[in-house]
């Protein structure tokens, strides 16, 4: 019937062979989404620079002594000519033994409880009263970690960057920064213990000098401290940048009287706006201070973009015309021109010229509960853009980097250009423009991040907001993660070498730390 309906064709019509035509049919369901993060990707510059200055530690490096352990394994493997599988076995056994000793000794270091592989190792100790190394360090059931290379991956970036351990032809090898003699001395006995099949609790307790908390006073601790502080290093070299960052952190922590929680939240504004920090000669003498000021200041803008985008996404209930996004933002902002809005922002500087100090204008608008959240964010972004012409050259160079950022959108320089363009026009129109720019950028970033799924033949794109057919469609909440400066990670590693200490949850600088 249908063919006569559709085509009026005669009875001898050749029926459809497979392949010539497919359909009509619905196109394949778009099931391939993955959790999207930071859809605006505005934090890349800060992240990239952070990783140039804060290389001594990462979010997964918890204990300085693992740096030594991995160095020891690399040196031992080289000297003994171990194969890859033998090296892996040695590494895993050493990590299990170090973990076992540290667990056995844990009452002495309540602030260092996060020992790698603690679940399996502690279970073994509690249930058997001993470590059974063939199982724990093996690759089968009961292993302390399913990662083949143990926890080396957690430390790889920092150990490589600091020159302690390198990766060559599938093996860990000592790097130029490794003091093998000091590592062997500091971890003396570890390799021998790792050769055992079983280690009972008493044996582990008898080797408490190998515990993660005992590094500061040992030879390997001193060697790592020397390596991290890199006396005499060129400030522009990686060692120099890292060492200066460590010195800056120690000084900031000391001037601030310690720190809790995310250190960058307290120490960052302190570095930027507090007269004590601004006039401190030690900080002024560090090349890294200007760089970090630029990065901290930029991070304030990055967070403002994050919060503004989150707010915009919250306005989307399923689907919304793209234009409505701009209207929603405009409705949350005051009336008047952009120029008038900017005139109403707090002062940014006290005095002028090189002696002028930055005033915490961003903090003032952020705390101003008379403003809506979008208003606070927009005000912060405007302040950042207006500061561009007021920053010392070296601070400005880290506030925005034309080299890596080019002339992409949502940079402070881009915002500054838009201020000039939109100055006399209504803030409402600027808000609509801004919302559209954010949405477009998010789309561009999502397309860039999309990855191909061979099994479905579809591109997997980050979940969150997608814009097509004139609609902004939200399928999940976007997940923005603010840039992490690694300051906590560095301070944590510095504790291992005796330069910082955590007392009642507060990080403080030790006497030794004050001397560096």
């Amino acid at each position, binding site marked *: 019937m249908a063919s006569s309906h559709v085509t009026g064709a005669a009875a001898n019509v050749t029926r459809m062979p497979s392949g010539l035509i497919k359909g009509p049919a619905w196109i394949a369901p778009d099931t391939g989404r993955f959790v999207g993060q930071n859809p605006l990707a505005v934090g890349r510059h800060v992240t990239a620079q952070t990783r140039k200055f804060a290389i001594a530690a990462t979010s997964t490096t918890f204990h300085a002594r693992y740096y030594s352990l991995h160095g020891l394994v690399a040196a031992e493997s080289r000297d003994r000519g171990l194969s890859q599988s033998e090296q892996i076995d040695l590494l895993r056994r050493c990590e299990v033994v170090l973990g076992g000793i540290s667990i056995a000794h844990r009452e002495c270091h309540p602030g260092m409880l996060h020992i790698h592989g603690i679940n399996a190792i502690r279970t073994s100790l509690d249930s058997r009263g001993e470590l059974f190394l063939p199982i724990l360090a093996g690759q089968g059931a009961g292993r302390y970690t399913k990662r083949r290379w143990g926890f080396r991956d957690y430390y790889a970036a920092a150990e490589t960057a600091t020159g302690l351990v390198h990766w060559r032809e599938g093996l860990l090898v000592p790097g130029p920064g490794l003091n093998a003699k000091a590592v062997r001395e500091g971890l003396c006995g570890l390799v021998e213990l790792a050769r055992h099949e079983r280690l009972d609790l008493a044996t582990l307790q008898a080797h408490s000098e190998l515990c993660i908390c005992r590094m500061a006073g040992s030879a390997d601790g001193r060697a790592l401290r020397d390596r991290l502080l890199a006396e005499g290093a060129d400030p522009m070299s990686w060692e120099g940048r890292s060492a200066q960052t460590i010195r800056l952190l120690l000084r900031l922590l000391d001037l601030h009287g310690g720190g809790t929680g995310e250190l960058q939240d307290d120490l960052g504004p302190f570095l930027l706006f507090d007269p004590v920090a601004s006039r401190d000669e030690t900080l002024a003498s560090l090349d890294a201070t200007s760089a970090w000021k630029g990065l901290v200041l930029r991070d304030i803008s990055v967070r403002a973009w994050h919060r503004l985008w989150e707010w915009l996404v919250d306005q989307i209930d399923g689907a919304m015309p793209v234009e409505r996004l701009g209207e929603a933002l405009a409705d949350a902002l005051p009336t008047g021109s952009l120029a008038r809005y900017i005139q109403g922002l707090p002062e940014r500087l006290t005095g002028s010229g090189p002696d002028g100090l930055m005033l915490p204008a961003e903090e003032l608008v952020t705390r101003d509960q008379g403003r809506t959240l979008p208003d606070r964010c927009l005000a912060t972004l405007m302040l950042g853009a207006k500061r561009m012409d007021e920053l010392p050259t070296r601070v400005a160079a880290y506030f925005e980097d034309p080299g890596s950022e080019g002339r992409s959108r949502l940079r402070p320089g881009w915002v500054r250009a838009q201020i000039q363009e939109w100055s006399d026009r209504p803030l409402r129109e600027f808000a609509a423009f801004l919302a559209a720019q954010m949405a477009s950028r998010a789309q561009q970033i999502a397309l860039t991040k999309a990855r191909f799924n061979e099994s479905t033949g579809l*591109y997997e794109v980050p979940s969150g907001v997608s814009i097509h057919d004139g609609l902004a469609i939200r399928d999940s909440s976007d997940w923005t993660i603010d840039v992490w400066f690694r300051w906590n990670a560095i301070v944590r590693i510095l504790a291992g070498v005796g330069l910082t200490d955590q007392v009642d949850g507060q990080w403080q600088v030790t006497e030794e730390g004050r001397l560096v």
Partner: protein
Amino acid sequence: MIKLVESGVTQSIVPMRYFAAEAAHRDGQATDALFLTFNADLAFLESRLLDLCRTAGSRVTVVADADVWAPDVRCVTRAGLRYHVGLVATGGAFHPKISLLVGPKRALAVVGSGNLGMGGWQHNAELATVLTADLQAAPRAMADLRDLLGTLANRRELDLTSAEAINRVVNQLTGLLESTAEVVDTGHRLAASWDGALIEQLPTHPVDELLLTAAFHDPDSAAVAALLGRLQPKRLQVAIQQGWTMVDPMALERVLTSYATATGAAVTVVRDPEVRRYRHGKLIEWALGSSRAALTGSPNLTRMALLRSAPEGNFEVGILADLTESLFPGGTAIEQVAAVPVRSTIAPRPHAGDRPVATSAVLTGGNLTLRLARVTTDVEVQFSRYTDPDAWQRLVSVTAGLGEIVLPSDLCGGDRLRLVWSDEDGNAQTSAAVFVTDPFTAQRRPTEHGRPSRIKEASPSDLWGEDLSFLESLLDELAAVSAELAEPKAPPAARPMGAPIARTTPETKMEPWLWLQNRALERLGPGIGPYLFGLPPLPKGRRELTPNWTDDQGMEGQTDTEPEVDQEHTDEQNEESVEVETAEADHSQSWPQIRKARRRWCVRAAEAARTLPAQYRLLGTGA
């Protein structure tokens, strides 16, 4: 064309697979890729399709609607340089959705409801029909497609470059249909609204059942009323997607109630079970006895789409086909239709259809041909250079009434143009930007370029894009270097006393190594040469396609790389999240065939390197 045995309506379609399959032939037989669309997301085209099409050997042309044209210029880096965009300004909408890739041996067409963009190709619930033809067989529907394109190419609404592209497609399809061993009537028929109102393609006798779904209805449900009058169904179901379908529920209810009252037909409005995915597909399906058929394609349930022919109505393309099973999404019956939350907040753009627009800008010789529409007031034409999407400057003023201007210009492909004018209230208004097309690069097939010049024109992004012919060109160039070295050299002729020595060595005091390197750079061009040697970019005559104003600066080769967070609570449960230092380069965005081809290329390049002079063996050290 690779035969994909995927017949049957229960199987879903992945349009991208067909384009990838054609590119995977690696014979470069395709001559033209043509995308007819309402919305055009050029960022999607450039990142997902363009290189596939060019690898297949084709030029690329996009024809889109001028009124909804609103490109985000920062997401567009190759328009006018690697492909042409022409816009259609018409009384209705330019609304067909056809994607074509044609050549003398094979042709492929996707006819459906999806626009050129991630929404139309993947995100939305769209209906599509894929037509494939080769020298063994072709569906008769391909001839329909050829015919409707033939009439479209003659429409005055199209710019010359787009019309030429469509004519090339028509000629190619004609050739293929004449060459193929068998033209098979599969029962599918294509029809275009510029050849007559689409409703005329539907049966004129009563049917047992009528099933309707579309993203857009008329405000007064006139199209639904017309369909009921024509098909007179005994049963009717209309699916509405809550929160998405653009419909006036009260008007729809009025039309349906009136029909049910008059005929006694069973009429039901159902709630589409799809709640997350935007159902953008358009379906008019009917059944009589045990047979079932449907009109799918671009037309919505609107007067402009179904009841009128272009240009009074929209430009639409529908495909009629027999069905073995229903495509209707079904759903639960809605008791109170008027109470269903639907989408009525998107009003038509207030000024759509009466604003001045630029529909194409093409370089010919030293001239720029700018095609305009609806210039009912004096406008200023502004341009922005490719290198700076934000810096607009005046180009020329145009008086009301002009439809096309030709002027000498130093603009280049990829530059942008827009119109600026004052509205009745004296407020400045701007049109969306159009991209200047340089036919030399945008409308020549990749294989038409001489291979040496092709690599000389290439940029690093070309080299690592999915158009693998750039890699091939590089290898060819290196092979040519090896061949020249292997050629026997004639002994130097006797040189008269005092005659200048042929310059085979540097005249200057340049280090020999630098001289050799410069020669290599000359050979490889200013884009690829410095990149592969790890040197700063050189100034170049033609356009650099790695601009610094896009939003993905610094993201090349990265996936979802994100800032770290303090994993204070990291444990064995989420160990896998830690990045290992030995991670390989990321090719996850590429099709498997592309990845395999790149690997094969690397092996061949390594082999070729053995016969190269030293300066060429260092290629890649900087990449």
